[in-house]
Every structure is written in C-alpha cells, then in structure tokens.
C-alpha cells in the first residue's frame, strides 16, 4: 500500500496496516490531513496483503476535532454543506469498508475525532483519554454522523447528554458505556488493537456485526424518542437559552435515529451547516480561539518567562485561600504568610475548605490533600521566610499604607528577580509600586472570587511594570490554569469599570420612570446571570457606591454619582449582607424592599416623573450603548486595546453571555454608527454619562468596527 504521506506514518505489522496520524500540534482535521487519511485508508482497503487497518495518533491526541479556524471563516452554507457531506461520506466509507478498521485511541478523541473512531469497527482506548462531542461549546453540533452513531453505541440518554452538554467522558467510562470495546495501558494500546484486528481476520469477530450503523439494539422506539427528545428540549430551554446548537443537535437526533442512516446523516449535515454559519457559532468559536491566544501580547513576544516554582501568598483570607488552592493544585511550593498564628490557622482551614468539593466529588482523597499540604505548603508569620520565592502575591488589607509597608520590607528580603504581585481590586498599582527601588517588578494580579473557580485573571501593568515581569505573570497565569487578560493600571482596571458601564444605565432608566423589575428581567433575558439590582445586592450596594465614588473622583464629571444612587445608599440597606437591599431578604423569599421602593417613588414624585412603559429592546439598547461607550473610553484612555481580550474578560469574569460574543462583538454586530446614534439620543435625555466617546464617534464616522474585519 501507499506509504509516503506527510501526516501519516504507515507501519505494516503482518496483515495489519497501522496508520499513525501525525498532524501537529493536535491532529486537527484540516482539509489536507483528512485527504491523506482517506487516501491511506483506501490504500489499505485496496492492498490484498492488508487484511485490517489500525488507526492511531501521536502525542496527546488521537484526533482533536475539526479545524475551527476553517469553520470560523465560512459564511456561506451552500459552500459548507457539500464539504460536510463529503466528510461524512468518508466516514461512511470506513464504516462500510471491506476490511476492519480498529481505532487505537492514544489520546483525546474529541468532536470529529470521536466521530471517526465511531465509524471504525472496534475501539481500543488508552487509559484516561478523553472522549467527547464538545461541539455545542463552540456553537456547533457533531457534523460527521456523531448524532447518529453515538446513540447507537451508548444509548439515547447518554448520547443526548454528551452531545447537548458537550462534556467529555474518560476512557473508563466510555468502556462501561460501551463506547469503546477495550481499554489498554498506553504502552499496550497498539498491540491490543493489532490483536483485535487479528480476531477480525480470523473470523472470531464478525465485521458485519461491528458496523455501527447496524447496532439497532440501543435505538429507542418512536415513543421513547419523542418523550426523551422533548425532555432534552425542555432542559435545553432552561439551561441553554440563547444558544442554537443544543436544539439543533436534539433536532438531528429526534428526526434521525431511523433505519436509514444516510438520510439522517444528510440531515445532520444540514443542521451542522446552519449552526456553523450562525452568529452564535462565530461568537463562540471566536471566544474559543481568542481564549487560546489571550495574553499573548506583541510586547512580550520572544521574552522567556522566568520560572515560577515557589510562591508566597500574603494573607489567607477569602481571596488568599482560593489563590493558595490554585498554587497547590498547580504543584507549586507555597508559603502562606499572615499577621499572626490565629489568622494563619484560619487561612489554612479556608484552604482546606476549598478542597471540599473535589473530595466530595471523589476527584481527590483526604489523604491526597494532606499529603499535598505536607509537601507543598509552609506557613509563617515572619516575612523573612518568603526570601526564596519567585513570586509574591499579596492579598492583605485594602490599605495603601499597609501594602506599601509590606512591599518595602519585602524588597529587602526577596531575591531581586522575584515578582511582586498585588491582588488589590481598587488601589492604584503605579502608586503602590512607587515605594519600590525597582517598580518594574510590580504588577497587579486581580483574581475573581472564588479565585479557585473563576477562570479569569486580570493582569494589570503599572506604569513601570517591565515586559519581563508581564511575560512571567502571563505564563504563570497559564500554569495555574487561568485566562490572563492584560490591562493597564486605571480605576477599576477593566472588568469592574466595564461592568459598571454595563449596569450603570439602570439608575438613569429607573429615575426616568422605567420599571426596575423589567430591567432585571430584560438583562437576564439578554443572558446575564443576574440583573443590576440583584448583583448590587450580592456584592453590596455600599461597595458599589464607594467604587462609583472613586470613579467620580478619579475620572471626573461623567461618573458623578446619580442622586437616586445616593438616596438608595443613604437608606443603609446594602444588600444581602444587611438582609435588605433592593430586595428584602428577611423572609423565606426575597420581596421588594419597601424602603428602597419608597425612595424611588419619592424621587420620581419630587422630580415629576411618571412611570414610563418602554420596550425590552429599548432597555437593552440603552444598557448596551453605555457599556460599549465605556469600552471605547477605556481603549481611548489606554486601559486596554485588544477587543478580543476585553470581551473574554467580561465573559469569564462577569458571565456576559458567551453566545453574544462579548460587548465589542455585540457593538460590531449592532453597528458603531447605530450605537453612536443611540448614545447621542441618550445623552440628550440623561446627560454626560452617555456622551459618546471620541473613539466611538470616529469609528462610527469611518464605518469601522472594533474587531478587524
């Protein structure tokens, strides 16, 4: 058979052709690779000496799925559909081929990778590898028979879950669900697959019985299919509102699973193509691709990050203990410092608590935790004990003087190349760094609460932060599995100020007679996890007030606190922590807080404002216009300059709906000229807070977009 392929190594073992796929970095199904793979398999089918084919990969992946950059570019369904069908036809040829094809799944088989494995006649998976159909996460559905083959192998309910939720399963679970026929140690994988091939060749396993399409016995009856699909749709409506793919996947399954798999796969191809050209898919694929490149700024290109092996955490409070969890989980030696033994004990107890969940879920054992703490964590009340560390992260009292005192001491203790990072959420880092002889070593690492769960890490460059410090911290963020978004030092950095911009319009609308409950509902319908009032009650109305006060003081007239905000603050109802904020939490269920309602009513009455009916669209427009303007202002001020990173920060930091792509992606879709027009209208009604930024005006005038077109 033909052996000279660029991406496939052919290893003939007796009557078995072992095809080793090697398309770096992750064996992605790029067009060229698929063509070679098809040719190699056909060549094996045609060679009379070859009686069976084993398909395996190199590295950590069997096949990591389709090349999303290719799908991202496609705008035309008519262009895409024949290609999707051709790919499915390739898989059909494997499944219906004259010789057995055994998938030796050496690494992760995701998306198109699992679909190829399912078209094979036998699957041997290496222990621990991940198997999944995660397409919904990027707005797609399985497009090469996955919606039809997976239910045939693992049954409808399990298949629906894997396809609509997108979460992969490991090889062991795959074996128990009969997705794979055998699990083998990685070193025995190919021999096990070759042995299975031998059983096909000797007739012990019948090829006919192993063609996945003919596995009818796990297919549901018509009544079951209808009932289970309806259940899945209901679930998707509550959990995947705003998304398209889960519904299309359910559609492919509900209308498929017939005895005519070719027709069902054709329908799947149609539905896949519908998804692929949708805005939602573009947004989600964009997020996926941008997440991989987050933090890769041109200014740090080529700089080798300093190795971080030992880290000091100053302060074991809520944030500190979450951060210690991250450090330990990443295998880093950690020194936890606090002011006294009592605080330290509390801190360690908090760190332990962060592992409750993984222990409960059996992802880790109590013994494992104890051993990790023993090996990696030391505690101290003496700052001198942090002298060996490569990085210090500080999360002590939010007081400039206290922080500066500590940093000054540390500069005399730590080695000169150690990086100093503050987790402050509000204090100016440039000012904090000014007490250091080498302010270039200081940076902000703004973790989000709970630190060990939230994926975002806002990396804040102070005025003199060096590129080396930044490069080290971006790499460190990846080590602790965070998505680093780099911004410059400014009040509220990026995320807090942007969230203020997104929700800041609500007080103007309420003061204008719009029903606050409608705003809450509309923002949730838009896809935010909660509305402005609910969020304020959670984070604290007083905290928000002080943040706004800082903006007012440092950013000027535009950010002047609204009189209604002032009046609500003066009620002393600060949210959940005081049992009353916008809502009253003293009873079983939250009800509107009469005090706040009265304050609003009084404000409206005093200002002669009557209740005003507005459409949901008007609310979204007003809220988003202000948010977009805030983003533009921050670009203008140099706080940040990468739209893709800004959007990611809101998605990972505040729960901005991923399917909308982010605030600036939304702006581009809406059209900057429309945003500008809306802001002009809002400015005339509500004043300077809504005044369009210069950048937005220029963007609107030039017909440009925030993202490169």
């Amino acid at each position: 058979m033909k052996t000279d392929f660029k991406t496939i190594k052919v290893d003939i073992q007796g009557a078995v052709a072992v095809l080793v796929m090697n398309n770096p970095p992750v064996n992605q199904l790029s067009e060229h690779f698929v063509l070679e793979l098809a040719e190699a398999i056909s060549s094996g089918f045609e060679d009379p000496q070859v009686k069976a084919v084993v398909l395996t990969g190199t590295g950590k992946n069997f096949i990591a799925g389709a090349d999303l950059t290719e799908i991202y570019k496609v705008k035309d369904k008519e262009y895409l559909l024949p290609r999707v069908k051709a790919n499915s036809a390739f898989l059909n040829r494997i499944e219906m081929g004259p010789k057995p094809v055994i998938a030796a799944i050496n690494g992760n088989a995701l998306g198109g990778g699992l679909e190829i494995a399912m078209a094979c006649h036998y699957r041997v998976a290496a222990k621990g590898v991940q198997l999944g159909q995660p397409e919904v996460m990027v707005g797609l559905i399985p497009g090469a028979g996955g919606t039809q083959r997976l239910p045939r192998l693992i049954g409808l309910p399990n298949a629906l879950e894997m396809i609509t939720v997108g979460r992969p399963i490991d090889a062991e679970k795959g074996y128990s669900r009969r997705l794979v026929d055998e699990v083998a140690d990685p070193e025995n994988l190919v021999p096990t697959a070759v042995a299975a091939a031998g059983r096909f060749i000797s007739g012990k396993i019948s090829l006919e019985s192993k063609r996945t399409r003919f596995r009818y016995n796990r297919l549901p009856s018509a009544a079951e299919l209808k009932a289970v699909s309806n259940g899945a749709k209901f679930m998707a409506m509550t959990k995947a509102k705003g998304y398209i793919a889960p519904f299309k996947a359910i559609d492919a399954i509900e209308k498929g699973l017939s005895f005519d798999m070719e027709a069902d796969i054709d329908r799947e191809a149609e539905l896949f193509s519908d998804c692929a050209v949708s805005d939602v898919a573009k947004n989600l694929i964009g997020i996926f691709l941008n997440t991989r490149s987050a933090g890769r700024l041109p200014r740090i290109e080529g700089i080798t990050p300093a190795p971080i092996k030992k880290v000091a955490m100053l302060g074991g409070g809520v944030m500190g203990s979450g951060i210690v969890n991250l450090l330990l989980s990443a295998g880093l030696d950690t020194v936890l410092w606090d002011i006294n033994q009592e605080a330290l004990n509390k801190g360690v107890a908090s760190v332990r608590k962060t592992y409750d969940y993984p222990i409960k879920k059996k992802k880790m054992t109590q013994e494992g935790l104890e051993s990790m703490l023993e090996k990696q964590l030391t505690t101290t009340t003496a700052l001198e004990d942090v002298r060996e560390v490569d990085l210090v992260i500080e999360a002590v009292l939010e007081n400039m003087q206290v922080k500066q005192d500590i940093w000054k001491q540390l500069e005399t203790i730590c080695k000169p190349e150690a990086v100093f990072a503050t987790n402050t959420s509000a204090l100016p880092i440039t000012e904090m760094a000014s007490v250091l002889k080498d302010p270039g070593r200081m940076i902000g690492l703004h973790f989000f609460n709970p630190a060990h769960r939230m994926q975002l890490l806002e990396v804040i460059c102070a005025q003199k932060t060096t590129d080396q410090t930044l490069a080290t911290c971006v790499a460190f963020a990846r080590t602790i599995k965070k998505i680093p978004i780099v911004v410059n030092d400014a009040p509220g950095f990026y995320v807090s100020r942007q969230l203020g911009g997104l929700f800041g319009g609500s007080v103007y609308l309420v003061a204008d007679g719009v029903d606050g409950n409608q705003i809450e509902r509309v923002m949730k319908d838009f896809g935010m996890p909660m509305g402005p009032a609910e969020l304020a009650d959670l984070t604290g109305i007083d905290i928000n007030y002080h943040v706004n006060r800082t903006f007012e003081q440092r950013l000027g007239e535009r950010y002047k606190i609204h009189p209604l905000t002032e009046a609500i603050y003066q009620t002393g109802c600060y949210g959940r922590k005081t049992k009353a904020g916008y809502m009253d939490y003293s009873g079983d269920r939250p009800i509107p807080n009469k005090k706040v309602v009265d304050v609003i009513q009084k404000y409206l009455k005093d200002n002669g404002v009557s209740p005003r009916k507005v459409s949901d669209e008007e609310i979204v427009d007003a809220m988003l216009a202000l948010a977009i303007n805030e983003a533009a202002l921050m670009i203008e001020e140099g706080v940040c300059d990468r739209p893709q990173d800004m959007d990611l920060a809101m998605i990972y930091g505040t729960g901005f709906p991923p399917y909308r792509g982010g605030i600036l992606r939304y702006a581009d879709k809406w059209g900057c000229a429309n945003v500008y027009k809306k802001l002009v209208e809002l400015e005339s009604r509500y004043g300077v807070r809504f005044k369009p930024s210069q950048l937005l005006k220029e963007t609107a005038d030039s017909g440009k977009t925030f993202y490169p077109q």
Partner: protein
Amino acid sequence: MKDVVITGYLRTAQSRSRPKDPARDWFGKMRADELLAKLLPELVKRQGIDPKELDDFIVGCATAVGEQWAYGGRFPIFLANFPDTIPAKFVDQQCGSSMAAIHMAYLEVASDNADIVMVGGMEHMTRVPMGGMTSDSGMIAPNMALFAAPEYLHWDMMTSINMGLTAQKLLSQTDFTREDMDKWALRSHQLAAKAQEEGFFDGEILPIEAPQADGSVTTVNKDQAVRGDTTLEGLAQLRSAFKEGHQITAGNSSPLNAAATAMILMSREKAKEKGIKPLAAIRAIGFAGVDPTIMGSGPVPASRKALDKVGLQATDVDYWEINEAFCIVALNCIKQLGIDPERVNVMGGGTAIGHALGATGIRLVGTLARILNKKGGRYGCANACVGGGQGVATIIERET
C-alpha cells in the same frame, strides 16, 4: 380448587422481525412493552372490569434483557397507566413464558389466592434479537464453562443453545423428511391465509397504529409473516438455515416476530358475579423437562402429563395448538401422541402466524379457545416446545 376460566384474550398482530433490516418490521419503531401496554386497557375495557380489580399481572418474555427488562412486570402496568395497586411478576420459561404465566395465574386463582389475574406475553425479535446479536451486545452471557469444561460437555451446549440444531437432531430421530416438513409448512401458511381472509384473527387482534421507518403510520392488523402464495416448490428451494446439509430451513421453521398477547383468567364465581361469559375453562396444565439437544420433543411428555391429570387420551382432545417453532416439532408430537393431523393448528401455526417467543403461549391458548368456540369441540390442548429442553401444555374445555 376453584374452577378457573379464561374470560378474555387479545393480541397484537405478529410483525415479521428482521434484526438486520429493522425498517421492514412493521413494529420496528415500537417496543414490546409498548405493544403490550396497548392491549391491557383495551382488554379490561372489553371485559367490563375495572383495572383495580386485577389481583395480579404476570408477564412472560423469553429474552428479558435490554429494553425487554420490565422491572418485574411493572413497566407494562405503568405504560398502561394502570393503578399501582396491581402486583406483577415476570416469567421466563423461554418459548413457554406466557403459557407459564397462564399456569401461574391458573394456580393463583384455583388456590383461591386471587380472583382475577391478567397475564401478558411479549417479544420483539427485531429490537431484542436472539442469540449472537444479544450476546455480542453483552445482554446475555451464558456461563462459558458449560461449553468448555469436561464435566459439562455431555450437555452438548453448542447444539442445545441453537434451536435449529436441536430441531435437526429431533428430525434425525424420526422418520420424517424435509418434504414432510415443507408440506406441513405449506399447510400452515394456507390455513393461516384462509383464516386471515375469513377474518378469524380479527376477533383476537387489536389493530395498532405503528410508526414506520419512513415516518408514516400504519395500522397493523394482520400477521405479517403469513404467505398464502407459498408453494412447495418454493419451500423446497430454500437452503439450510442453520448448517449446510441440514433440512431445517427458514421455510419449515417459524419466522422471527414481534408481538404482544394478553389474557384474563378468573374464578368461575367471579365471572358469574360479573356476568362475563367465559371463553373456556382450564382443565389441566403440564410441564416437562427433556434432553436440551432435542428440546422440540418437549410437548410430548408435557401434554401427556396434562392429559393424565384429567384422565384424557390424546384422541379425546378435539383441537390442538402445537407451536410450530419448527414443523418437525408438530409432526413429532402428532406421531408420538397419535393425534389426527387434521385436528392440529387448524387456523395455521407458528410457521405462518409467527412465534414471538414470549408472547406465544397466550396466543396458542387464546386462539385454541376461540377455535373451540367456533368449531364446537369440547377439549383443546395447546403445547409448546421450550429452548433448554422443556415442554409446556394446557388443556382447556369449551364453555357450553
């Protein structure tokens, strides 16, 4: 002992199952429990009884794995939305399963432990295939020692588990020929086709609206495997179904089928109290074990046992329903018991009507009761061979 009567019987048609080509099975998109659940409410309605009055529900099924696992018989009750107060049991006596359900119900009522018992049978041989396909998918896993260990080799499990081979072995122990079997098969199809034409089966088949592979819905109201146009020449041309050189063919064996059956048994007093005219009374039951390699001989001792219980000779029985799992089973039983062939399977047998394993027992007894009522005989005996080497039989008496 209380006198036990059969008051109601209903079945679905038997579709022709094709595990490898499910689109051609009229019931390909329905499960066996769904078929059964269609029968239950209709049968109680026709009987004019409240489901709450059912003291027990006993389901027979031969391959009680995969989707035919029925939670001890409760799933069909749930699917029929019957009251949760009805207890249930699940019986597997292979092809005798639903006759075993009748036997259990008979004993419960006769011993005054129940007044009214509903029995059911179900099997879908497309969706839960026999043998290799069920085994490949891990749904059945016989103990391999039975096939390999020296102390078990005398069971000859390779033959015992393959019904076609057992039928061939039975054939080899008789004087019957391939032609005898084919002729019996032809007779079966012709009689069944005639009965179909005359509408005999309409009295026992509940039409089912069945979704089809192409998305359409078909009313399934007749047995799919009956072929009135079958010819002896056609049958003679069929190749061995199980092993080359053997005489057992698809033509002289029962097809694969999907169906459900249901029956209501009650004490005579209860029937009287409710003003229900019984179809027949159960006079005796019989069950026997035989060499598993010739499981087709099972009906002979099982029938003898039942006959002995009521002091009857085979010749006293007016009509017989002998399950034609294979034609040789009926032929052997006829010869061994000295039965008049013209009294056997007069509306056609399993070769034509079908043999949805777990559903068959009720089909045999129910159809027999209807034959007695139509033709006017007094006694009837229904029997069946059972995989693994058994036979089951039931003797009924027509109500006059």
